């Protein structure tokens, strides 16, 4: 795995990706009101506190909708697809996009995990019942040089 971020990200985004890249499922949270801050940011969208900390939070969530990407704009996704992506309402209170093993219907319960993508960057994945973490991770590992 790469030890650096291969895609440009914001400073809070890079910090989160590094954490996820180490296999830790943690997200930026406001220490004042507790709200999850996603997409990552350095000021709370609810209470405007700037005391934001990456920490563990509830891994549960439900699928809002899912899609299958056949046409990617980045070379590293051109092979190995199509890619199933779900929009997920987290129990911790935010909407995240995550890689999934297969398209999932709205309402499907999932567990959110940290995975390494094709470039080795830390990103979010989601597992429905019966889905193995390793199967999702392997979808990316296969394409490493």
């Amino acid at each position, binding site marked *: 795995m790469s030890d650096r971020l291969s895609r440009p990200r*914001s400073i809070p985004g890079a910090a989160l990706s590094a954490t996820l890249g180490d296999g830790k499922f943690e997200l930026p949270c406001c220490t004042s009101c507790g709200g999850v801050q996603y997409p990552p940011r350095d000021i709370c969208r609810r209470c405007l506190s700037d005391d934001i900390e990456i920490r563990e939070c509830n891994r549960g969530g439900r699928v809002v909708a899912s899609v299958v990407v056949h046409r990617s704009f980045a070379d590293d996704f051109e092979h190995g697809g199509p890619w199933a992506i779900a929009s997920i309402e987290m129990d911790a209170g935010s909407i995240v996009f995550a890689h999934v093993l297969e*398209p999932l219907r709205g309402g499907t319960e999932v567990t959110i995990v940290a995975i390494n993508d094709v470039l080795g960057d830390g990103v979010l994945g989601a597992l429905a019942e019966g889905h193995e973490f390793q199967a999702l991770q392997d979808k990316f590992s296969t394409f490493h040089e």
Partner: protein
Amino acid sequence: MSDSYDPIVLTAPVTFGYERYSDHGVPWFTGNTLAAMLHLSGLDKSAIDGLAIASFSLPPDTPASLTEYLGLELRLLEALPFGGASGVIAARRAARAVQAGDANVVACIGADTSNPSSFGDLIANFSTATMDASYPYAAAGPNLPFAIMTAAYMERYGAKREDFGRICVAQRYNANHCDYALLGGKTLTLSQYMDARPVVEPLHLFDCVMPCAGADGFLVMREAQARELQLPYVYLKGAFESFNAFADDLVQLRSGWSKHGTALYEQAHMAAKDINIIETYDDYPVVVMMQFEGMQLCREGQAVQYVQDNELRFDSDGPAHNTSGGQLSVGQAGAAGGFLGIVEAIRQLTNSAGANQVKSPMNALVTGFGMINYDRGLCSSAAILSAGNV
């Protein structure tokens, strides 16, 4: 309710330079659009004292750079970084400025160029939220959030691919009668739509716009001046702009139209049934349905029935929709896509469209939508225009 925009009018609609790729930059598109407006209006360049400009590909130049490049001396310069919502917002802000005496004549222009790598570059760095939370998920650009909206709409309201296809096929028919539509030379049947390759399922090829270069614009001035110049013009009967509406919705199936639509009709002293022409922002057909519902052409969740009941062609009995073919058949010239609808509406209401002219239209609804920051569009807008002196 907002005050009336009287006695302000919109005139000199121009659509310029649509092509797939161009070696020219935004100043060239802006300057040519302005020159065409001056030609239509008979005004001298020195009469333009305001400019409202929307463009993604203008950097490293700025709206201020344009004043030097085109030799304009202005007292009002408005930048509109609102993508598909920018045309209506330009009209609204320019009208207020002229009404208040802060400018006499404002040129409102959306212009963008295109080359084989420009669209990919734009979406890779669109916002920090897309860089951190959308692009790493298979780098699908705006197709990802719009596929999610489409999938959610299909699950919630029972829409089928054919229902979205009806919108695309009707727009292609309109484009077949519009000389500047880049895809107007090709017909599209529902079976061709259904057989197209998947892009981001449930979206397939004909649900997505073709990025291109081009520009659209119009002039805003007082009615007395337009009369003096003997110009055909339209009234701005009402308009709103809205940002980050319904932020707590889990998925975006509505936007500012649902919040401000009623007030817009009140401001314009009319109802949805009075609208003859609807120009929606059509980067994807699901957004067209959201605009139909938000602007009360049908109830929430009923757009499937609406597109089955209405033919939506420029020569239909019912309301005409996206009479030029919209972005789905003209092409999406960046921020000019946010001006395509309002410029086409001005042309239609002044009876200056071509073979796609709607018969004697009185009122047009124009809606805008833009800036997919992460999972939803943050800007929405709408305006009602009425035929003026024709």
